[in-house]
């Protein structure tokens, strides 16, 4: 069987960086591609939302948000107890794993589409809902636990109006308000090119993920274990939550992937400002250097298998 080109692009980036090639994507291109992906995922979800009555989604949304609040509370004691990390670092890493990775979600989406597995098309709504709660809980752990105040105004702007939330949620609303027909003239850019852009973006992700691997030597073996086992636990939890709130097997697998993914865009930005005493290298090495590659290569097929086992019908 042929290998998924999306994974190959990622590996090309990893290889180029490990061999110390001078290959790098210009930063504007990286930003442009990520803007494109965020909007497109939003639009896709929004177009589908338009076809659904919103009422029945509310309980699902509530369950998903509750899960987002719970995840960092599970991760934190593990990081303190087993990882022996200080409060700021443990809280920061918990926030990263409580939030989500939009690219991991996109890869899972493409993976399901290639295999024609049905799933709720409005899943992007949950990406938006899951991005913020984990970060807020992580900050609360760091601040309140340390008996320190929080600038709630600044913080809210940082997390709710961060680039990725605005683009995802903006795309959702535009897709929802326009509907598929009005968006047709834009479809050739946003929808037709999505998987090609994702492949290019994975090249960049490979370059930056490999750049983080060096740091792992310094941070030791704990983060390696945490970055691979915690996602499996979280993903399983996500799949169970999906099942509980009534998602299909495909949708539950996607929710599991979200739960098992770690944020490396929104969370690092917010935590650096809110908890500057945490070492940003630790959390980024784990989220980007371990968990992202793990999910892309091992996790996604694994979570599909888990979902299949739990649901019965094979994905």
């Amino acid at each position: 069987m042929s290998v998924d080109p999306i994974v190959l692009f990622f590996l090309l980036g990893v290889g180029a960086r490990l061999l110390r090639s001078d290959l790098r994507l210009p930063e504007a291109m990286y930003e442009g591609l990520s803007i494109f992906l965020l909007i497109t995922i939003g639009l896709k979800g929004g177009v589908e939302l338009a076809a659904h009555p919103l009422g029945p989604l509310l309980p699902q949304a509530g369950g998903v948000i509750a899960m987002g609040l719970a995840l960092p509370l599970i991760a934190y004691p593990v990081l303190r107890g087993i990882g022996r990390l200080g409060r700021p670092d443990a809280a920061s890493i918990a926030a990263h794993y409580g939030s989500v990775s939009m690219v991991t979600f996109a890869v899972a989406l493409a993976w399901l589409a290639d295999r024609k597995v049905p799933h709720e098309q409005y899943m992007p709504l949950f990406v938006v809902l899951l991005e913020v709660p984990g970060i807020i809980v992580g900050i609360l752990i760091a601040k309140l636990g340390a008996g320190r105040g929080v600038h709630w105004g600044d913080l809210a702007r940082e997390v709710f109006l961060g680039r990725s939330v605005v683009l995802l949620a903006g795309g959702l609303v535009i897709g929802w308000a326009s509907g598929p027909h009005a968006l047709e003239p834009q479809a050739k850019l946003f929808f037709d090119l999505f998987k090609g852009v994702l492949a290019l973006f994975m090249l960049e992700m490979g370059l930056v993920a490999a750049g983080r691997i060096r740091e792992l030597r310094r941070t030791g073996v704990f983060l390696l274990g945490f970055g691979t086992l915690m996602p499996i636990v979280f993903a399983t939890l996500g799949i169970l939550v999906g099942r509980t709130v009534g998602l299909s097997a495909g949708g539950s697998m996607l929710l599991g992937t979200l739960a098992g993914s770690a944020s490396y865009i929104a969370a690092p930005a917010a935590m650096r400002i809110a908890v500057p005493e945490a070492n940003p290298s630790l959390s980024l090495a784990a989220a980007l250097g371990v968990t992202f590659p793990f999910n892309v290569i091992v996790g996604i097929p694994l979570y599909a298998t888990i979902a299949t086992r739990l649901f019965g019908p094979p994905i």
Partner: protein
Amino acid sequence: MLPVHPRKVVVIITESALEPQLVKDVRRLGAQGYTIADVRGGGKHGDRDNDWERDRNIRMEVVCDEPTADAIARHMRETHAPHWAMTILLGDIGVLRPEKF
């Protein structure tokens, strides 16, 4: 020869995430202006060479009188330097329009 008025220039090289905070800080401490460039670099906190969006540095330059320079440098050292990759430099510079700085 034009009359040249002596002033201080404070240079702060630090992580780009701190930019909005720095701008607020120096304004509050009395600076009438500032200039910021995107840079990369290396120091105690390792190489910050631009390969990931959060790994960028900025170089802020503030021209002001000596008390303001002192206040800015002191504030940076005490508030931000403990937790951020940061270099603080102080130099002498001349200006033509003293009321501007």
